[in-house]
């Protein structure tokens, strides 16, 4: 599979911003070609005849799955459990460096 259509530097930077990733110059180049390859791969779908296939947004054969309000919470965590993965805890909250 050829990768004629490298993504431009601006396109990669835009995607990295949306994904909240910081990339080095080398990575920008690398992902430019890798992402183009990925898009080309998806283009294989163009070879399939899909006119008669209805748009699908769920592959499981289920609908209207819901729970009754106020029913027992079996997945709740204690405060201690909830905070146990945090790197920095301040006042029983997850702490980041100040963002604004």
């Amino acid at each position: 599979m050829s990768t004629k259509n490298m993504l431009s530097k601006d396109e990669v930077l835009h995607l990295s911003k949306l994904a909240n990733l910081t990339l080095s110059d080398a990575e920008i180049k690398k992902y430019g070609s890798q992402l183009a390859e990925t898009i080309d791969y998806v283009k294989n779908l163009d070879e399939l005849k899909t006119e008669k296939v209805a748009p699908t947004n769920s592959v499981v054969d289920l609908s209207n799955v819901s729970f009754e309000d106020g029913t027992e919470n079996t997945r709740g965590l204690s405060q201690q459990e909830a905070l146990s993965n945090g790197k920095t805890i301040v006042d029983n909250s997850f702490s980041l460096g100040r963002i604004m």
Partner: protein
Amino acid sequence: MEKKYTPVIGLEVHVELKTKSKMFCQCDANYFGAKPNTHVCPVCMGMPGALPVPNKTAIEWMQRVGKALNCTITANSKFDRKHYSYPDLPKGYQISQYDEPFAVKGKVTVKNPYVKGEAKSFRITRVHMEEDTAKLSHEGSNTLVDFNRSSVPLVEIVTEPDFSSAEDVKMFLEELQVIIRYLGVSDADMEKGSMRLEPNISVMKTGLGTLPPYKVEVKNINSFRFVKEAIEYEVKRQIVLLEKGETPKQETRGYDDVKRITYSQRSKEDAQDYRYFPDPDIPPFAFDEKYRRDIENSLPELPPAKMERFEKELKVKEVDAFILTRDLGTADYFEKACKALKAEKIEPQSVANIIINKRLLTSLKLEDFVSKAKGLLAAKKTDTALLEKNIAEVIKQNPQVVADVKGGKQSAIMFLVGQVMKMMKGQADAKTVIQTLKEKL
């Protein structure tokens, strides 16, 4: 200067539902005042592999809101993921709705006797269901994250850009708050954050048919008081730029209620940058006709209908009907009181006067209200024949005072009023006494 330009304003209003459980997990949704990170589970903390399941009641309540705003409840719907990176969003996406919301195309007509002119209608684009984000607090060198609010059910109401002034926005919001409280699905309290307003504001040259090529979203408006201030400030800011020949930037701005200004927060993403796609964790929804009819039938009589009925059937003045229907409890109490006092031949308008002008509390037990109301009205009911007879008597007995009044000493009339009231044993309305006395002098 402002006449040359017309503001074009559309609204996004978020309303937090007061269900018992959260939107996609069974954690307690009532987080107000709770210790940080105590109403949490793997779902609302966005842990890998945790599966969200929608809250049935939240969806029903949202659909009732949609119906109350005269929307169509859609037969097919689904949840989508809306992606953006922010520390209040642990999954990196918010579960929301994109192209198949639960309710579409509504209209709210507001008839407010305190606002000049005809009733005004505002179109509702859509009403959809989503989840609230975690709460961030910025303290010292830290930003703290509390997940208690994460995944609390949030209804988003989107309007068409049908507003051309801050007054219209305020009037609409007040009506919306009343409607939502009638439904009993939320406190819709702006100060507590259970109702939040994000106006999209732009300004166009008056008379120009096309919408401006930009819009500015304003966030952080957390009280009714600031709604008008924030919009008026933003409109003025944009007019200044337009006068300079510039086009205001499309962006999100915050409102600073201390400095009373809006300030730039971030450039606004386009919808495509949110990379919406159907949430594969949540199967789609289908609602048959019966279900949708039941939603419609579950609505209480809403404020505009109630107001009209009070005016037409109970012959209550428009402004009083408006005041009485601002709160469902007051409206119901008023009707009960009217029924109880009907036997005493007391008209609904008199009951309205007692509640609105005499401020007799609607928190009283009904029988106490009835007896106090009868007392108030009895005192007011003046026996005119007796009054005139007593006035004649008082005038006869006090020739000097009468002469003083006639000579221009207006204050002396109060002595005569006092004498008349004494003879009436208090069973007369003071205003009527003064008026009749003046006529007789």
